[in-house]
């Protein structure tokens, strides 16, 4: 066969095969090497870049930020270098704000419930339909149950002031916030000692005791940052916590105090300070009321006795008392923030406030500071209307000795709604708040919900509370909002004013709650009370600060160089005695212990654990767990349990366990930690969600709110979340 004679390839077949080859190489052109052949936009450089100011909303601190906007898309949030309160930082959550803005689970348009509550069936409404419906429902309740028949719960937000205003002009006294799950015990205690709630000058302090406060995880600006700076400058940090938190890890001394016995420790400190005359006698004579009574009272509270209660050695207690007093007045017993722990939390905090009083640290560098003048003016609003048929008081009135009138108590309010006493409350307007996750005893909240005719939630994602609502209205994130001005107390960092203007236009059909109220006001004949714009409102707020507008526009923040120390020079304290009250007369008159009397915490039943509550730097309470970025730091919550205790129950690290309490139960993974007492367990909030609209975390972890039983502080009505005993059983490997 002749090899030499080749049949020439026909041109047609050649072209056919070349075409196939070209197709193949075009696919391969995805490879960057070949991609370079294809002319394309030069290496991703955006056409239009803008930098805009705002303040973060991922938690309450409101750190100033600069948003980088490339071609209309926010690509990065950086700290505002001029923002003193945050010492120019932006934490993990701050950076994750972009994932809140572009959250795929964001609410897009008004939703009306179809089917049963919690089924997750929704019908899309136009805004007009939604607002008409809301106005109709609110009117119905108002007519049948008076205006106080609607509960308003504003979250921690710069527009929450409008929720209060709307509640006021609508005529409901029933406004409660998360504060009664949080700091009311502290506020009560310090108001009743110093006449005002102080801020800590951590930056300049030389000795600080933190009982429970986990500042390196529960970030508060500038406290968390200044704490580290102070440490570097030689400040000593002593931490009392049943749990080895990151604050405990970085402390000079950490004691795994027996939960609920903090009062014993601080009364013993007072015992030593007074007994050994480690206080400034001239100061005491001039500024402290009740030294004699206190001296008598704390004689019984010896360090030896205290050791028996709190399990901290007596000699350490003595030493700490001496070191603390020696550092005074630049020494602080840190007031903390979330103090919703025990039924006597207010008294516990009173004990701590009393020690602060003895240290003479009020209004001093490194001590407790009065609020600084910020300089915002109250806006000129018309007088709110009076509703004849309204009841005399809030629905939760009288259930605790000294509730804050404008806060009440969410626990007592919920009970009142369930009991329908003193009068029925049938409506609920929730703004940017999630009681189904944040308030102890979720089943009770669900029971409360059954008693309500109409629930309206304004939120940015389908939180558990939104999930159980009747009408859900989509709000814009902070990066899309224009807000009124807000004053911030930064202790020794600053006293400042912040505000917000939109960084990008509002996405989808989201509308700020201010607009919602304007529209509702129209429909409820309350237009005159919302007859202003945010700009006008802000202008009024800034009227006494001539440089305010410029500073906000050019620097993203306005600073009031107001007095830091010596604010109380020549002033009296806002108490009955006009002094710092170690002995509180009003309490005595009310039949409440005028000085804290130690009461051991409720006995833990054997075989059970006490559940404690705590925070993480990655999440804000029960929000942001679903955030796409933050979720990567902790995909689910776990139960911290001591290895010895776990071994006794046959539980290994990573095993699924079930925890049960009188309130409810949950299943989650066990996380064996040496750094927690054998009698204590801990879990993070915000998981075990009901809402299937939180697609990233639905089905993950367990819900702490379901497990916590709802006790309340006797004096303030603040939730008491450390009183729950749980049973832990192994579920599986």
């Amino acid at each position, binding site marked *: *066969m*002749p*090899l*030499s004679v080749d049949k020439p*390839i026909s041109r047609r*077949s*050649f072209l056919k*095969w070349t075409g196939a080859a070209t197709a193949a190489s075009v696919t391969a052109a995805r490879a960057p090497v070949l991609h370079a052949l294809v002319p394309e936009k030069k290496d991703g450089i955006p056409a239009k870049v803008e930098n805009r100011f705002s303040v973060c909303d991922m938690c309450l601190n409101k750190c100033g930020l600069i948003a980088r906007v490339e071609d209309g898309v926010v690509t990065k949030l950086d700290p505002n270098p001029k923002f003193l309160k945050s010492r120019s930082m932006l934490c993990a959550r701050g950076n994750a704000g972009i994932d809140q803005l572009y959250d795929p689970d964001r609410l897009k348009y008004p939703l009306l419930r179809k089917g049963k509550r919690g089924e997750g069936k929704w019908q899309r409404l136009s805004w007009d339909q939604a607002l008409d419906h809301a106005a109709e429902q609110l009117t119905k309740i108002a007519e049948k149950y008076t205006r106080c028949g609607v509960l308003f719960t504003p979250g921690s937000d710069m527009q929450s002031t409008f929720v209060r205003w709307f509640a006021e002009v609508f005529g409901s006294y029933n406004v409660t916030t998360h504060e009664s799950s949080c700091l009311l015990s502290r506020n009560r205690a310090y108001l009743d000692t110093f006449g005002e709630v102080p801020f800590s000058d951590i930056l300049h302090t030389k000795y600080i005791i933190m009982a429970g406060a986990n500042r390196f995880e529960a970030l508060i600006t500038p406290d968390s940052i200044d704490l580290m700076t102070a440490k570097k400058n030689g400040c000593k940090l002593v931490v009392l916590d049943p749990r080895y938190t990151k604050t405990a890890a970085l402390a000079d001394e950490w004691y795994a105090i027996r939960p609920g016995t903090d009062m014993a420790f601080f009364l013993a400190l007072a015992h030593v300070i007074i007994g050994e005359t480690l206080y400034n006698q001239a100061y005491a004579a001039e500024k402290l009321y009740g030294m004699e009574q206190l001296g008598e009272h704390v004689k019984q509270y010896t360090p030896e006795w205290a050791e028996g209660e709190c399990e901290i050695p007596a000699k350490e207690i003595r030493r700490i008392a001496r070191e603390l007093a020696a550092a005074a007045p630049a020494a602080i017993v840190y007031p903390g923030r979330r103090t919703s722990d025990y039924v006597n939390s207010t008294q516990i905090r009173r004990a701590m406030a009393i020690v602060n009083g003895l240290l003479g640290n009020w209004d001093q560098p490194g001590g407790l500071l009065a609020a600084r003048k910020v300089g915002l003016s109250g806006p000129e609003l018309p007088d709110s209307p009076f509703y004849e048929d309204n009841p005399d008081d809030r629905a939760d009135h009288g259930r605790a000795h000294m509730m804050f009138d404008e806060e009440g108590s969410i626990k007592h309010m919920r009970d009142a709604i369930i009991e329908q006493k003193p009068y029925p409350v049938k409506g609920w307007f929730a703004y940017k708040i999630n009681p189904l996750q944040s308030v102890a005893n979720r089943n009770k909240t669900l029971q409360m919900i059954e008693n309500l005719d109409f629930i309206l939630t304004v939120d940015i994602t389908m939180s558990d509370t939104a999930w159980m609502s009747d009408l859900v209205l989509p709000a814009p994130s902070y990066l899309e909002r224009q807000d009124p001005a807000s004053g911030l107390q930064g202790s020794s960092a600053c006293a400042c004013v912040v505000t917000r203007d939109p960084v990008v236009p509002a996405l989808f059909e989201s509308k700020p709650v201010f607009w919602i109220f304007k529209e509702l006001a129209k429909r409820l004949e309350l237009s005159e009370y919302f007859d202003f714009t945010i700009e006008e409102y802000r202008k009024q707020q800034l009227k006494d600060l001539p440089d305010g507008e410029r500073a906000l526009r050019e620097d993203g923040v306005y600073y009031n160089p107001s007095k830091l120390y010596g604010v109380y020079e020549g002033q009296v304290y806002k108490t009955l005695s006009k002094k710092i009250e170690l002995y509180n007369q009003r309490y005595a008159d009310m039949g409440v212990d005028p000085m804290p009397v130690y009461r051991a915490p409720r006995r833990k039943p054997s075989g059970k654990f006490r559940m404690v509550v705590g925070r993480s730097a990655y999440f804000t309470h029960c929000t942001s767990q679903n955030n796409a970025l933050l979720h990567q730091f902790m995909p689910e919550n776990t139960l911290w349990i001591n290895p010895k205790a776990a071994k006794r129950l046959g539980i290994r690290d990573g095993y699924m366990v079930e925890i049960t309490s009188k309130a409810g139960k949950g299943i989650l993974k066990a996380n064996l930690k040496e750094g927690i007492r054998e009698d204590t367990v801990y879990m993070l909030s915000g998981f075990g969600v009901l809402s299937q609209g939180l697609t990233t975390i639905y089905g993950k972890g367990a819900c702490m709110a379901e497990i916590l039983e709802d006790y309340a502080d006797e004096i303030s009505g603040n939730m008491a979340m450390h009183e729950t005993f749980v049973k832990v059983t192994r579920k599986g490997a």
Partner: protein
Amino acid sequence: MNSKMIKRHSKLSIFLHWFNAASWLFLLATGIGLVKNPDLQPVGMWWTHLMWGLFGSGENLLMAHVIGGIVWAGVFLIYAIVGIKQVSQFLKEIFSYSPIRDFMWLVKKGIQMTLGTRALKKFGGILEKRGASPEIATPRIPDQGFYNVGQKLFAVPSVLGGIVIAVTGIIMALSNVYFTNTAIVRWAILIHFITVGLVFAGLLIHIYMASIAAGERPAFISMFTGSVPEDYARHHHRLWYEDVKEN
């Protein structure tokens, strides 16, 4: 020596051969230039710097190499499909051997080339004395077909090596498009390098044998003209010559 000419290579064969040679050299030069690691660079970093300089940047060099590779492999892939008849004939030829005859060819040709014709005759004598059969003992070099076994023994690794080089090359080119398992890519790089090295070693011999070695002039010319003298064909590729003569 006046001879008639006999057609040996088609125009397409000639084109493909020189196309292959040129592509190979281009790919060799650029490929070696892409090794920018002194531990791995076989020739020396000077070559890499030279190539980078010539092409302007490493990315350009890489692009040139990959495009060159795709064109080279592409042309042969097309040919393999379109000219399947010629290709299978070629493959059949280079993969068929008569072990004893071909082995003796290698031995005798080797002796002739290194030690000369006299030595070959002596060798034949030795074999005869040892009782080898006349076909083996004869100093005459055994007949060969279209390709002699020496050519076949280069063609085989060329073809197989070429396939391995192309496949490993494609793996590397697509490694940032499809692959999640990078171990494949790493081994592909190594095999690519070794195979190129092996074929290159053989290439040195091929170039010498095909163009410089004594007596190969007519063959070399035929890679341009397509024809060899009949005498040459009869002497060097008798079996093929006889086949052609029959038709």
